[in-house]
């Protein structure tokens, strides 16, 4: 009997040894990247999620791309486009000898096919981006010509995102609206498989025109939503690259010394959107909300003056993000370096409230997205504003519900971010123009519209920057329908022996050119 027990224990010991002795680290020819969210459809025409763009960066290249200094450069185009006809004709030469990952040629016909699909396909999320384009012509096998309704400066930046991604016509014709299940584009890696909520696997393409840039046989994108779990997986070696490291964790990782922590200020912003005229819904006529916050600019100015953006950054984000007070991030060439953000002035805030007939303070509700980071952000704002006489009630809400409530005019104030676009037009126009698709506060000022519309039409950067400066003066100095607070930094962590990584302000991970040392 005793001998039998000994045998059992020995077997148990061997089993534990076998289970724990296997290789815990990922194989070196496979790079494992952890994302915080599962992308939506892997179809450049239909996709909308930010994380989806990270997958596309490796298997769906674009006509143009941006570098770490936000300069646009030709990727699948052979050169920068030629603009003629007063800005209404854009001619693009394509790189020769490029093949899709199914071996079919990427030529002018294929690019026209793709851009027309982006413009016309039912449910396309690219249609509004390419709305200024009226037609696309094939000039020769490697040249296309875009005709526009009116000059539209942000077009090249638009083509440096999903709108500029050619898809294989052969694959589209084969798969139809199921293209997302086996997408084929041009890229250093090609699609292998997707297990929803778990992983997306890509392998090195045999058709890519610059194969030397792909140093890994396979890329595995794993979906790990929880920040702590993602971090534990990085430390254990189960993943090689961690996307969106939390600010506090980034400081700890730096101290550990094993990991490189790359941080770059993003193109977007986070602010507090203050509803002013949206009473019954974004698509309904504006109405009078009847609240001092909506109707009295002095109350909004007082709220603005109660906030210390630098302190918010230190307390809520351990100083790892970038304070700001405009929709344009400091990384943009359009950023106004001479602008000073309003400093905190509690005394003046109290004076303004008193002048607005609210000497005993004012109470309102601020909706925040219900996650730990945004709750902390909301609490810091709540504490700061209290000193100036604002009694803020925080209303945590799930993201999708909050967006719907915002559209329907149910929110007084909403702390919400925008991921940002390369061209400043994408950060301002649709939020600030009368009837803009994202103008949920329903404010309208034709003088601001005129400035923003003019900035779309001209191509001179200095003139455009001047127009944006004037518009932003009016937005942040008067109507304050959005109080811009900070620009999120994209923080990425990976082992120190991973070399060649360049952080680009769009925050997308680009593994092309990256290798183990």
């Amino acid at each position, binding site marked *: 009997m005793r001998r039998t027990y000994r045998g059992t224990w020995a077997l148990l010991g061997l089993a534990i040894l*076998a*289970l*724990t002795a*296997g290789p*815990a*680290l990922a194989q070196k020819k496979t790079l494992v990247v952890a994302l915080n969210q*599962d992308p*939506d*459809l892997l179809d450049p025409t239909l996709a*909308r*999620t930010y994380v989806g763009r990270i997958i596309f960066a490796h298997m769906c290249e674009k006509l143009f791309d941006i570098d770490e200094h936000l300069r646009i450069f030709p990727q699948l185009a052979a050169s920068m486009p030629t603009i003629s006809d007063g800005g209404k004709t854009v001619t693009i030469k394509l790189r020769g000898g490029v093949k899709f990952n199914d071996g079919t040629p990427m030529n002018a016909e294929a690019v026209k096919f793709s851009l027309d699909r982006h413009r016309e396909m*039912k*449910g396309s*999320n690219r*249609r*509004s981006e390419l709305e200024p384009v009226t037609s696309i012509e094939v000039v020769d096998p490697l040249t296309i010509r875009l005709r526009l309704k009116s000059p539209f400066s942000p077009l090249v930046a638009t083509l440096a995102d999903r709108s500029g991604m050619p898809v294989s016509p052969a694959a589209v014709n084969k798969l139809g*609206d*199921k293209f*997302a*299940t086996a997408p084929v584009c041009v890229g250093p890696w090609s699609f292998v498989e*997707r*297990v*929803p*909520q*778990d*992983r997306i696997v890509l392998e090195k393409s045999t058709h890519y025109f610059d194969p030397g840039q792909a140093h890994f046989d396979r890329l595995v994108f*794993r*979906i*790990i*939503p*929880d920040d*702590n*779990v993602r971090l*534990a*997986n990085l*430390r*254990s*070696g*189960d993943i090689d690259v961690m996307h969106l490291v939390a600010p506090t964790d980034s400081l700890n990782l730096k101290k550990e010394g094993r990991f490189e922590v790359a941080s770059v200020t993003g193109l977007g912003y986070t602010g507090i959107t203050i509803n002013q005229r949206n009473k019954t819904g*974004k*698509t309904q006529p504006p109405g009078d909300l009847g609240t001092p916050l909506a109707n009295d600019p002095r109350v909004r100015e007082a709220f603005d003056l109660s906030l210390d953006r630098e302190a918010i950054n230190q307390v809520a984000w351990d100083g790892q993000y970038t304070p700001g007070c405009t929709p344009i991030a400091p990384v943009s060439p359009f950023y106004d370096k001479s602008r000073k953000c309003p400093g905190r002035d509690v005394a003046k805030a109290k004076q303004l409230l008193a002048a607005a007939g609210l000497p005993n303070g004012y109470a309102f509700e601020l909706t925040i997205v219900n996650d730990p980071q945004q709750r902390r952000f909301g609490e810091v704002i709540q504490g700061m504003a209290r000193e100036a006489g604002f009694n803020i009630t925080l209303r945590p809400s*799930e993201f*999708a*519900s909050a*967006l*719907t*409530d915002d*559209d329907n005019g149910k929110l007084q104030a909403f702390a919400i971010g*925008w991921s940002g676009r390369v061209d400043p037009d994408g950060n301002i126009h*649709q939020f600030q123009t009368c009837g803009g*698709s*994202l103008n949920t506060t329903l404010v309208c000022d034709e003088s601001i519209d005129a400035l923003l519309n003019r900035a779309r039409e001209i191509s001179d950067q200095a003139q455009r920057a001047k127009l944006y400066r004037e518009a932003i003066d009016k937005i942040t100095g008067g109507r304050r329908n959005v109080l811009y607070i900070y620009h999120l930094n994209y923080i990425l962590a990976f082992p120190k022996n991973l070399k060649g990584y360049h952080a680009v302000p769009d925050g997308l991970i680009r593994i092309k050119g990256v290798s183990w040392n």
Partner: protein
Amino acid sequence: MLDFLVRRVAISVVTLLVISLIVFTGVRMIPGDPARVMGGTDADAAGLAEIRQKYGLDAPIPVQYLRWLGLALRGDLGESIRTRESVVWTVARKLPITMELAGLSLLIALTIAIPAGVFSAVRRNTVWDFLVNAASLCGLSVPSFWLGLMLILLLSVRLHWLPASGFVPPWEDVLGNLRRMLMPAFVLGAGLAAVLMRQTRNSMIEILSADYIRTAWSKGLAGRAVIFRHAFRNGLIPVVTILGLQTGALMGGAVVTEQIFVVPGFGRLIVESVFTRDYPLVQGVVLITASTYVLVNLLVDLSYSLLNPRIRIGGGTGGG
């Protein structure tokens, strides 16, 4: 018997119809516009209208329900809005993963609980009994999220013994599968082990003080023979009852465990589909789960009726 069968099947069909109605309307009561979630923050009004039309979200809810029910009756639960994969196929891929996790955690729970419970009962009121009880209290009170993270930090980050997360199908790599499932199964099984251990202990203490056991002792039988041959089998009966009741809870617990260990199972599928307002997926997942319960209940009722004729004649055990 045929009458009974028809009656039970009819009740099950009505139950399923009611469930389908609750599921369908319940999903639509979740705040947040699915078109907005799909279209993203930058979707304009025309884009949103197009999405609603494409997925039939612009039709009145009764029309949407009948359309969905008609397809569901033909076994077509639609396709995921997010991935375009068929709902049935998605569930078929996820369910076995969670079942494996639940099965392993059950195994771990039994392996820990039964010997510990017996040991604790035999050595009751000793320091060993106290230690085993303290351990079971920990198993009951420690949140699985915390326990999971601590295990990852110890076994994966510090010792590099086990992978921190992920899943490999057993047919691809059996050892790799077990290495990845060990920690989640332990975390999921810890709470169950605690419950079972306490039940085993109580049950064994009761049995060990029974007259027939005293007789066995007085006959001079060896301790091991008394405990395992005479007491253990009877002591297990209430444990098995509790085990049956707790097994369903394992599936619920898997939701949290799968999140911590990034196991792509049924639990994560439910959570993600709710957050992304993937209506067809949420509806399909809940309907399949509910149908399984209804089917199991139906089979149980039928098996009762086979075992006890009074049930099929009177429609109940107490009716007569």
